[in-house]
């Protein structure tokens, strides 16, 4: 839990859940496992609010509770998980992926589940159907069965999973929290009969009464669907695997050509549910299987497919490897090597953009040749001595390049020691990851600052919009509308537009940096687990 991560988590919690949850969350992150009494004491917040914040955090999976460490009878302790909170940054990407794969219905299901944390199937279906009906034309409404089928599709491909049952107070010696995967019914759809259609929300006059009536109805209806207690959550790991596959496919498309990337996409699709998340490579697939599973649009003859596979195996990037000869050749996708190559390309691109292409040349040279003396660096990179020296020292001061001393004598006399420059990929990746966290935190703070600066203007524009909406609803004349619109002067309108542009830019920048974060995190996790 580095300070940058804690700062970023604090900002994300404040934006999504409010100040109180932020205080409790950051306190838990900084101090590790604590019980309720200690939290109340140290944050100075009242018992009520602390309980509610903890509920919110548990609901979203950001906090887990476990029996106290001092043995039975000691109060339960709460631990906040930094990783889960950082995932909040990635919600837009999850929702967008669901939209591309399963359409609007899938998008709304994922969005609802991300916002609520855990929900039952019936609840989700109803809410999503209602929302979809809102946006449809008059007279049409969304059928529950469509939403249910979309839901079951998501479960089949493991994008949604059941929440594990909570570890009871009297649970046995399982000291570790059971993962959702260890629960056998993780992906089983419950037998639920849901018949009905989405309800359109009526106009605002009757809004209040409608809402109360609906609440009462919901309360009754939930009990009748037979799936209470079965809560569903979004399987973030599965989305991560999907993102990783996408990145590998686009890298192959960039390096080779479209057909090779289609072949790799087929291979990855076939091993989607059979490969464990921590595997270093997919299960071997025979060339015959790949040939049969290729999408029908690509009718490439069998020998050509074999040639493509051979080319993929020979490529120095080592995306695909050959694991045997049976079945026309067994091929695997080397996931960890692909991730290492992608991480290396990320590091190189950062050095290139930040310091120029000659420094990037030196950086790549050191990555390939591991350890080099200064003179050798100058010779290989064909850069004049003075400039090469300057670039090396800049990179060294930014900690992207390390110096290794090899002494000739027992005292490290400078004239009798070899000084070798080297690049270590894993520590450099970690350092860049922390930089990414800091960057995102900076972007969020800037966004909040910009909104705060123009708070008065924003409030004014909101008031005007509200007046306009009410006037329109009550059927006013055009002159009245224009009169109201003119209450915002032209420069103010310009300012508002500029503000909107800024905030959009900052938002999209956050998403872009999140892509880098994802790559670096996957690389670090895959390397760390393989070396441990």
């Amino acid at each position, binding site marked *: 839990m580095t300070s940058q991560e804690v700062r970023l988590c604090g900002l994300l919690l404040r934006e999504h859940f409010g100040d109180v949850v932020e205080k409790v969350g950051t306190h838990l992150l900084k101090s590790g496992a604590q019980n309720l009494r200690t939290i109340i004491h140290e944050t100075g917040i009242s018992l009520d609010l602390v309980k509610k914040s903890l509920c919110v955090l548990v609901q979203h999976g950001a906090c887990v509770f476990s029996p106290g460490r001092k043995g039975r009878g000691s109060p339960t302790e709460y631990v906040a998980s930094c990783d889960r909170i950082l995932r909040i940054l990635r919600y837009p990407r999850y929702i967008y992926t669901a939209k591309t794969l399963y359409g609007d219905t899938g998008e709304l299901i994922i969005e609802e589940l991300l916002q609520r944390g855990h929900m039952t199937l019936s609840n989700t279906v109803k809410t999503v159907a209602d929302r979809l009906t809102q946006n449809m034309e008059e007279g049409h409404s969304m059928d529950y069965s469509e939403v249910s089928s979309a839901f079951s599709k998501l479960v089949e491909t493991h994008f949604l999973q059941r929440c594990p049952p909570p570890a009871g107070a009297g649970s046995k010696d399982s000291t570790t929290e059971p993962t959702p995967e260890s629960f056998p019914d993780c992906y089983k759809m419950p037998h639920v009969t849901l018949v009905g259609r989405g309800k359109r929300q009526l106009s605002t006059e009757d809004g209040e009464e409608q809402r109360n009536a609906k609440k009462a109805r919901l309360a009754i209806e939930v009990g009748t669907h037979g799936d209470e207690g079965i809560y569903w959550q979004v399987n973030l790991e599965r989305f991560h695997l999907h993102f990783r596959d996408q990145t590998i496919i*686009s*890298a192959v498309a*960039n390096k080779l*050509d479209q057909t090779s990337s289609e072949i790799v996409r087929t291979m990855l699709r076939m091993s989607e549910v059979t490969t464990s998340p921590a595997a270093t490579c997919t299960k071997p697939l025979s060339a015959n299987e790949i040939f049969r599973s290729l999408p029908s649009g690509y009718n490439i003859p069998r020998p050509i497919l074999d040639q493509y596979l051979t080319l993929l195996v020979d490529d120095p*990037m080592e995306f695909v490897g050959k694991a045997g000869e049976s079945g026309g050749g067994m091929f695997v996708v080397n996931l960890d090597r692909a991730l290492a190559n992608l991480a290396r390309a990320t590091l190189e691109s950062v050095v290139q953009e*930040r310091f120029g292409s000659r420094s990037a040349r030196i950086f790549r040279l050191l990555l390939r040749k591991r350890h080099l003396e200064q003179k050798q660096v100058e010779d*290989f990179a064909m850069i004049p001595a003075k400039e090469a020296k300057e670039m090396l020292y800049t990179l060294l001061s930014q900690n992207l390049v390390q110096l290794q001393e090899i002494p000739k004598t027992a005292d490290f006399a400078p004239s009798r020691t070899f000084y070798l420059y080297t690049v270590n990929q894993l520590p450099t990746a970690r350092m860049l990851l922390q930089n990414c966290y800091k960057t995102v935190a*900076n972007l969020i703070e*800037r966004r909040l600052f910009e909104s705060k600066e123009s708070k008065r203007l924003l409030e004014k524009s909101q008031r005007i919009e509200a007046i306009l909406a009410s006037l329109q609803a009550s059927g006013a004349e055009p002159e009245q509308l224009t009169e109201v619109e003119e209450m915002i002067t032209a420069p103010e309108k310009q300012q508002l537009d500029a503000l909107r542009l800024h905030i959009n830019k900052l938002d999209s920048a956050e998403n872009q*940096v999140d892509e880098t974060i994802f790559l670096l995190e996957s690389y670090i996790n895959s390397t760390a687990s393989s070396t441990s």
Partner: protein
Amino acid sequence: MSDVKVKRETNLSDPADIESRIKELCQQFPHGITDQVIQNDMPHLEPQQRAMAINKLLSLGQLDLLRNSSGLLYRLKDTQSTSKMKGSDNQEKLVYQIIEDAGNKGIWSRDIRFKSNLPLTEINKILKNLESKKLIKAVKSVAASKKKVYMLYNLQPDRSVTGGAWYSDQDFESEFVEVLNQQCFKFLQSKAEVARDSKQSPMVQRNSSFATSHEVWKYICELGISKVDLSMDDIETILNTLIYDGKVEMTIIAAKEGTVGSVDGQMKLYRGVNPIIQPTGLVKTPCGLCPVFDDCHEGGEISPSNCIYMMEWLDF
């Protein structure tokens, strides 16, 4: 008349005759004669006289004194070099010999001092003398620009001293290297494009996008952008820099001996490639490129709220 064999009696006590006899012997044995040989030839010569004659010849510079495993060797010196050294004294000859031994790599003045055990002032005087007589020259080394190495006047300095094709007058020619770099890359890129557009089977496409180092070398020579002759090794160093730029990849294949361009039964093939990812998200934000990134925190002089880079970036 009696046939009296006139014995050619050499007046053995005449030093000049002894010397000329020794010289004749040397000429007979161009590889050098030992003391033993002289003794055999003139057995009645006393060692003292022999030594005197040899010393005289040595000081005149007509004999070379060498040592081999069995003893001392005397060799007739080349007359041309003898004329050169006329008028020089022993110390100069010694220094000259040391420089000659250094060959075309040259030797530094401090090393001359070590080898000859002469004091520095003497060395400097001798070197100046020899330079004015145009027997040696000083060449500036490219490794350390203040260091001067001395070598014989008519020798070509070695590549390691002048730096080879990339250095002209001690200056690294970076523009020349850049131009070569770009030309090679364009050549490989166009070859790859032609291969891709040919729409043949993928194996053929890939193989035709490769170029051997020999082909690239021929292309560059024909372009004629280089004033100096470039060898295939030079071109390979340029191609290596392209690999370090990430624009080109290399494979080595086994080739039959005798095919054009193969070295030790291998050929190096180069191919232009595309980068595997677009510039990463971090560098699309001002923070990714910020020079004062480490000093920035909320509430400080440099903070996200008052960052000038962000302001410019947002208004872009």
